[in-house]
């Protein structure tokens, strides 16, 4: 599970994608962040397989993320935008979470 960042700018980014109003619910975006950070063990919701595949691609192989396919299947640009940025924030912050935690340990 991704720990909300201690750095104020990172925390503000995390808070924005997980709490601001959008076409998707804040709860869905929180699950997107968690799945991108922690892996496919975190489900986004029932009947969300195509969004989950998109989140996994953004996290692991973003050039393979099928944004055009989501649009063709009826998702709006706002949904694709919100899910893409939430997944990128979850995966991106998770990449350095362990190193930042180790650095905090060294500083103490």
């Amino acid at each position: 599970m991704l720990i909300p960042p201690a750095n104020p700018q990172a925390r503000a980014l995390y808070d924005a994608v997980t709490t601001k109003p959008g076409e998707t619910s804040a709860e869905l975006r929180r699950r997107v962040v968690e799945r991108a950070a922690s892996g496919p063990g975190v489900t986004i919701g029932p009947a969300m397989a195509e969004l989950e595949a998109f989140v996994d691609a953004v996290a692991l192989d973003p050039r393979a993320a099928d944004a055009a396919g989501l649009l063709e299947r009826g998702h709006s640009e706002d949904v694709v935008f919100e899910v893409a940025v939430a997944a990128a924030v979850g995966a991106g912050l998770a990449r350095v979470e362990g190193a930042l935690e180790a650095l905090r340990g060294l500083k103490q």
Partner: protein
Amino acid sequence: MRLRGVARGHGVAHRLKLGVVRVVSGGPPSDVVRLLLYRSELFGAPLRRYIHAALRGPSEWTAGERELFATFVSQCNRCAFCTAAHRAVAERALGDRVVRAALDDWRSAPVSGPVRTALGLLERLCRAPEAVGEAELRQAIAGGVSPEGLENVLHIAAVFNVINRVADALGFDVPPPAVFAHEAETLLRLGYDYGPL
């Protein structure tokens, strides 16, 4: 960019902001600007402030060195857009030869010891982030980087791991190098937090 509405300008506020950027910069906004100004309260504004703090905030690293780190992370993630954009700024600050050498082989590049140490850490973080722990950080400190300098490097890695993914997932168009070279001086001088936009 795959989100055509975002690329064209979506709603009055977004189109107005894109118009301001067009006038100020003297050219069409790049895809990253279009995206960061779109519903910016949700992503673009806090991301710009994070990037600005990491690349232009108080630090033992120069702006040029931090642009090199941003380019290095982007290259490691194979993000063509962010690599080209930040390479232009790094080259403006450090010169083409140094940046090319660092991106080709950081071990032999003509950079300071601490910069080489930071590039090595960023490479390990890119290839196996879970393997970067206290031992690697102690090694970096022994290589001349302070804990605060390391923290700065880690936040550069974080923020570029975010924007690299957005750029590639949404298919940002990569403009010719001359476009990024034109923007480089402004980005070097003013940074990334463009206030009320």
